[in-house]
């Protein structure tokens, strides 16, 4: 037992019934539930600390500013950033990726320059590059995904030849695959490209060290790591952020404004135009504390064990009926399991499971190019987090039998 046995009781939302059954929440890759301490921290901020930040000289405003900057410091240390100023708060991972594309890439890339991504990217790491291609004529290259659900790196040298950026997910939100980011960073740098990492599914589940990953940019989103919706992070090396033009213009991001123009604030505030999401940042800071108290090594260990149990149980119980995509080795993957059950459509599978109080996602998971590779229009996806346990997976295996009752032809 790597995590406290009673951890479920930290999450008030989980104590609910749906269709007469206790909720079994297996959709954390979509969004995570929030522990009481995070909910309380946000309420406490509004009850005692709320004021606009970086503006007031009175004590309350000083405290609000300290709450925001304190959260930034917690996030910086959680991912082992060199300095707090490397942590830019955004709305979510999608905005972080767009900031990278609109600011850094728009400035540094010209027509014909290549950006390399992979076939297992979330739309958040695809569409901004399509947009830049339409705008500037950049070239978009794709690392293929092989049948085992891993990146096929056999042609990487050619793909990286002349590329300016390699941007890859650290963990697939469909297959669970953990990609060799440190190795990819090295290869990118050797080819003269920078390395961006979509760590939306990684930071919540795996101890993260941006230095060890060798990345230049890394994005993630608070709501998948026990924090509220509405806050995300762009981490980048300070010298890169310093050289990048602002993304949005307005208050907070300036040092001075005249009728002739403006000068930008220092990093990270240069990228945080307007009143920021302070309560959400406080929630993220508390979520980071909560995860650190559990220990990220324990979080990862828990998920490896549970994933192994899930893969074993589902295969034992449902045999050839169930196809689980992605790596078969738990150590090579996270707790995200996309599956196909017989020839029953994922929508129908999810509907039947819902009737037993089990929440899984069905659809293309915002990764349509990957679905094309898998030859599927959709999959069902069960995804795990700290509050899941073996009983949740037993219930999933049981409830899948009900799918048979309705759809066995």
């Amino acid at each position, binding site marked *: 037992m790597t995590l406290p046995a009673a951890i479920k009781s930290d999450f008030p939302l989980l104590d609910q019934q749906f269709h*007469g059954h206790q909720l079994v929440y297996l959709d954390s890759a979509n969004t995570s539930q929030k522990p009481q301490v995070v909910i309380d921290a946000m309420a406490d901020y509004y009850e005692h600390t709320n004021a606009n930040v970086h503006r007031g000289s009175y004590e309350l405003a000083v405290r609000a500013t300290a709450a925001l900057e304190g959260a930034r410091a917690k996030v910086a240390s959680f991912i082992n950033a060199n300095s707090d100023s490397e942590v830019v708060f955004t709305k979510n991972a999608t905005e972080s990726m767009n900031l990278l594309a609109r600011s850094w890439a728009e400035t540094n890339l010209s027509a014909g320059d290549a950006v390399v991504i992979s076939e297992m990217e979330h739309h958040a790491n695809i569409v901004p590059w399509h947009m830049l291609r339409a705008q500037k004529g950049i070239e978009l290259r794709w690392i293929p995904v092989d049948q085992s659900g891993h990146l096929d790196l056999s042609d990487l040298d050619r793909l990286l030849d002349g590329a300016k950026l390699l941007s890859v997910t650290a963990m697939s939100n469909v297959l669970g695959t953990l990609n060799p980011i440190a190795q990819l960073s090295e290869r990118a740098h050797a080819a003269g490209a920078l390395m961006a990492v979509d760590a939306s599914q990684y930071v919540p589940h795996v101890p993260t060290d941006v230095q060890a990953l060798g990345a230049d940019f890394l994005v993630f989103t608070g709501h998948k790591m026990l924090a509220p919706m509405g806050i995300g992070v762009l981490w980048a090396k300070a010298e890169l952020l310093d050289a990048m033009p602002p993304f949005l213009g307005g208050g907070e991001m300036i040092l001075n404004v005249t009728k002739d123009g403006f000068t930008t604030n220092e990093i990270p505030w240069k990228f945080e135009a307007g009143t920021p999401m302070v309560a959400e940042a406080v929630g993220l800071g508390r979520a980071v504390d909560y995860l650190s108290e559990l220990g990220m090594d324990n979080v990862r260990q828990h998920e490896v064990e549970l994933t192994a149990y899930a893969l074993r149980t589902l295969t034992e119980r449902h045999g050839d009926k169930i196809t689980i995509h992605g790596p078969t080795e738990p150590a090579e993957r996270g707790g995200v399991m996309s599956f196909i059950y017989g020839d029953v*459509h994922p929508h129908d599978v999810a*509907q039947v499971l819902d009737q037993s109080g089990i929440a899984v996602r069905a659809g293309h998971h915002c990764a349509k190019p990957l679905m094309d590779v898998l030859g599927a229009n*959709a999959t069902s996806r069960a995804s795990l987090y700290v509050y899941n346990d073996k009983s949740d997976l037993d219930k999933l295996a049981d409830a899948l039998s009900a799918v048979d009752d309705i759809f066995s032809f």
Partner: protein
Amino acid sequence: MIGLEDLYREIILDHYRTPRNRGELETPPAQRVEGFNPLCGDEIIVYLQVDDSGVIDDVAIGGQGCSISQSSASMMSVAIKGRTIEDARKLIVAFKGLMSIHETEIGGDGSEAALGIELEGAAEDMKLGDLEALRGVVKFPIRIKCATLSWNTLAQALDEAAAA
């Protein structure tokens, strides 16, 4: 409590297992229109062949999707085959009414708004037959889009057939 039996009625599962009018038609003379549900990736292709007198003399359904979208498309194909374009439009309005969608506008452009209201009245006489089995979908709001996918695609195919 709402039960799955309200959704997965036997006749729905029957159309899902054994879809009617499944296949393709040659284009031309047939119209071919694709419909997508971006939410779940379901895809429906409606082939529609209309004769000179405005009667749908053949229909075929392609694509893939969940039991609700597939069975709805299958039942729709049976319901419209041999009907006039005008009757098919009335059926669309009647079916959408069954799904609790009340549109005054059925075509792509505003000029048909008045026709839509007229149709809503006329549609009340349309017999939905087997399609009534889909009534339970209303209790599962996220599935309404599955049930209406083929009908929205049909509406577009009818517009194209009428214009051709």
